[in-house]
């Protein structure tokens, strides 16, 4: 579909587009990408973002390892992934081009800052010949734009220092992209005004850079056409763009309100989980108490203290931090106190890939403690799902008096998507009982779920001692009795199993039985949905399900597995869920594993489905 504009340029309508903004880590690419996403979401497109940046804060300029990228996939129908391969690449320097051009679709658009393609930058990017001057980019549509010099002349009256002028070039690129995709400048102009109140020169610089980028697209002959993506048909409601970490933080505040408990967070900064601490620290007027602890261990042990004191207690971390919290997690489960441990998974082991995503802490979450030490493990499937799973993790912890590990990952934590905001009255209350009656009180007494009573210091008549030593069931006295220990180990395991009574059954999308089921968990949901949709479009018969509850599994999982001849388990790890499934159900699942620090690529999963089906395309 295309129409002609007054200036003779053509507007083409597209179903969906993937854009990659790339530049130096100090070039403001994350900000540019976020602004573009927010405006796009505001226009009613569905979208998913993937910030992809190095772990250095300001890596040396122009280097390949210093490239920071922000990928965004938006469309007029449901969008579930940040896109396998970009259609458009905005490259602010040769290094950004070199790192990202290999992913670009054929006939894709490259907009590059040609001023940055000088001898020094070309050398840093290890280009022997300027790629804009040979035919190495002939399979793409290349638009070299001298952004540096255009920005200098556009901003000459703003009174900015040369350094600040140079810093505005990302807004030129953003303005050009707004023109190219027929998007308004107003939301970003409004944001600039709010962000830089009283800094008139900065506002002037950003406005002029943005507008001159837009008019550059409109007025030069370089671009013959531009594009438009129609609004997506999303369910009615009020929306906002939300990242996984923000959703987790707000979900925890919601859990605090729904349970009527004070929220306490003990946390030590660690990438990519720190934003949860940042967000929660802002909401003091919700009574939220955040404690930036001296280390990961103090993060969790202070939360254990707060939980003993009757708060909804949280600790947040990423893989290496979870390892440091191992012993204290064992203490919490021995104390039988409620605790939510949020692990935003990143590439491991050790320091690994701090800013990249992976699902490789599943086995650590399941088994990484001394002794027989089951805890509940749940996972979020998308940025906005973090909100609901943070509430769910809190509900399980409070109802069963156990630690619950919520697994998210770097991709859904930093990625964002439009979220239909729920009203508070749509959220289920969390029932909590704190014991006050001293009559017949026994610290390790059991309710129907096997949970023990929560008796908070300050309550008269309920003075009691808890601790990491094995306790006599019911009385809670220290006990080394062999039969009691055997019973207590089983009780602690059974408590977790009892959660099956309240967690939802696994829902299968597609036929409820058949040849192939694609079964994922957590943050791979988007990739799997798109892969299965593509496979179906190609005529393949395939069903799909995504696990959010891993310990315990949903009650019907065994039955679901038995209904399919083959089960493909795609994971961003070496097959950790596959191991657990084989262990618990003795099923020969088929693994599909990648460890690139990036979300799984849709087309690769589709290929795997085709391979397993033996190339059967009905």
């Amino acid at each position: 579909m295309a129409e002609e504009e007054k200036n003779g340029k053509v507007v083409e309508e597209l179903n969906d587009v993937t854009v990659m903004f790339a530049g130096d880590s100090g070039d403001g690419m994350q900000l540019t990408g976020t602004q573009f996403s927010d405006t796009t979401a505001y226009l009613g497109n569905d979208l998913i973002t993937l910030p992809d940046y190095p772990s250095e804060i300001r890596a040396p300029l122009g280097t390949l390892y210093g490239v920071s990228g922000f990928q965004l996939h938006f469309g007029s129908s449901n969008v579930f992934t940040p896109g396998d391969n970009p259609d458009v690449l905005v490259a602010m320097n040769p290094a950004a081009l070199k790192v990202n051009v290999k992913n670009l679709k054929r006939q894709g658009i490259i907009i590059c800052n040609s001023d940055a393609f000088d001898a020094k930058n070309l050398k840093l990017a290890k280009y022997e010949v300027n790629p804009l001057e040979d035919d190495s980019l002939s399979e793409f549509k290349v638009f070299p734009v001298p952004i540096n010099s255009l920005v200098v002349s556009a901003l000459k009256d703003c009174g900015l220092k040369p350094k600040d002028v140079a810093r505005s070039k990302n807004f030129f690129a953003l303005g050009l992209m707004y023109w190219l995709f027929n998007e308004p400048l107003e939301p970003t102009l409004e944001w600039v005004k709010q962000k830089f109140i009283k800094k008139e020169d900065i506002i002037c610089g950003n406005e002029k850079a943005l507008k001159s980028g837009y008019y550059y697209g409109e007025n030069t002959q370089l671009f013959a056409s531009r594009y438009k993506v129609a609004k997506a048909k999303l369910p009615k409601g009020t929306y906002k763009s939300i990242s996984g970490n923000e959703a987790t933080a707000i979900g925890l505040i919601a859990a605090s309100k729904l349970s009527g408990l004070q929220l306490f967070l003990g946390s030590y900064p660690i990438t990519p989980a720190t934003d949860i601490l940042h967000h929660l620290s802002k909401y003091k007027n919700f009574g939220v108490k955040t404690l930036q602890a001296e280390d990961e261990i103090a993060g969790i042990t202070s939360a254990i203290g707060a939980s003993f004191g009757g708060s909804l207690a949280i600790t947040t971390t990423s893989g290496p931090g979870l390892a440091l919290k191992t012993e204290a997690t064992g203490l919490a489960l021995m104390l039988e106190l409620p605790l939510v441990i949020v692990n935003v998974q990143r590439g491991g082991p050790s320091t690994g890939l701090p800013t990249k995503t992976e699902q490789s802490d599943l086995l650590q979450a399941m088994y990484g403690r001394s002794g027989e030490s089951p805890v509940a493990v749940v996972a979020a499937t998308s940025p906005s799902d973090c909100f609901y799973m943070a509430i769910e993790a809190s509900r399980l912890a409070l109802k069963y008096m156990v630690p619950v590990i919520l697994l998210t990952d770097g991709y859904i934590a930093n990625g964002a998507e439009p979220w239909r905001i729920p009203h508070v009255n749509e959220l289920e209350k969390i029932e909590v009982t704190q014991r006050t009656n001293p009559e017949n009180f026994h610290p390790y007494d059991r309710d129907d779920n096997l949970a023990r009573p929560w008796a908070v210091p300050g309550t008269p008549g309920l003075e009691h001692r808890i601790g990491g030593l094995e306790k006599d069931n019911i009385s809670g006295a220290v006990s080394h009795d062999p039969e009691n220990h055997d019973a207590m180990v089983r009780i602690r395991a059974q408590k977790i199993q009892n959660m099956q009574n309240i967690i939802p059954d696994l829902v299968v999308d597609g036929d409820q039985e058949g040849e192939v089921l694609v079964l994922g968990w957590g943050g791979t949901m988007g990739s799997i949905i798109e892969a299965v949709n593509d496979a179906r479009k190609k005529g393949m018969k395939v069903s799909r399900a995504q696990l959010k509850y891993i310990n315990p599994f949903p009650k019907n999982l065994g039955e679901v597995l038995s209904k399919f001849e083959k089960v493909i388990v795609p994971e961003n790890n070496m097959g950790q869920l596959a191991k657990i499934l084989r262990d618990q159900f003795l099923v020969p699942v088929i693994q599909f594993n990648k460890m690139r620090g990036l979300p799984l690529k849709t087309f690769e999963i589709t290929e795997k489905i085709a391979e397993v089906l033996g190339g059967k395309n009905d």
Partner: protein
Amino acid sequence: MTDKIDVTELKAKDFQSDQDVRWCPGCGDYSVLAQVQKVFPKLGVKKEDFVWIAGIGCSSRFPYYMDTYGMHGIHGRAPAIATGLKVAHPELSVWVSTGDGDLMSIGGNHFIHACRKNIDIKIILFNNQIYGLTKGQYSPTSEKGKVTKSSPFGSIDYPFNPTSLALGSEATFVARTLDRDTKHLQEMLRRAGEHKGTAFLEVYQNCVIFNDGAYTDYTDKETKPDTIVVLEQGEPLLFGKNFDKGIKIEGFNPVVVDLNDGVHSIDDLLVHDENDESPVRAFIYSHMTDHPNLPTPIGVFRQIRRQTYDEAVVEQIDAVTAKKGEGDLESLLFSGNTWEVE
């Protein structure tokens, strides 16, 4: 801690739990337990507001023997657990029982940060200069050269001086006492209990099995007058059987002077001021410890008032709430850039 209320009916035995006390016969821990049970009724705190938090070690079994709320945690982490509890629930009187291995070694980081934050918890260090529960290895407070099972040729480690460490970490209350001096021990426990902020009390505690007699010079009636100087507010530092010896400052250092030498008088002596804003005086006391030519001080080295961490948490919440109004979940959810889909 709550304001003083009428709790006069409380007695020491109200704080005795139903658990058999399982320390070795003759252990100094018994004395600390007995004095705590005597002092607690006098602190004006409701029984249900006391909490004991411990890590791992002989002294960390303490909470089981007190009929208060208590938690026997994991090795070294008691100050961090206590911090979380106190921040979450500032009305409570939170006490930590800990040993020299628990607090000075595996828990060193939590200790210094609790002091730095001035969180309102009481840390009672049972310092016996040995690992007891693991059966006799040298600890971070053992003297250099100590022969133990893990140092058969003598330890080569220099020890920590716990009071110096506490002062260096900005603790607002630093004191020392002896397990055998029950009156002094009671007094120091009361003072720690009444302090607002991190209170650090080091108790020289005898381990009868693995380090018996470590403090005999300080506790024995014969030697004590010459080896111990008792710090008393506003009083000059006097010691000796007839209180005829004193501590004078020469340059930056304390020296012993004889008041019978015809040269020195009581006016030459260092006068104790526990409320001195400068920590220098308290550091002088801490460095007199185990000195070959100086008596070891007991008493309150330093007590100053600073806003506590838990007070500041509440103050910030109140200030932000006064400015922004009490948080409303519905408006939080719908805040930011939103748009409607029809």
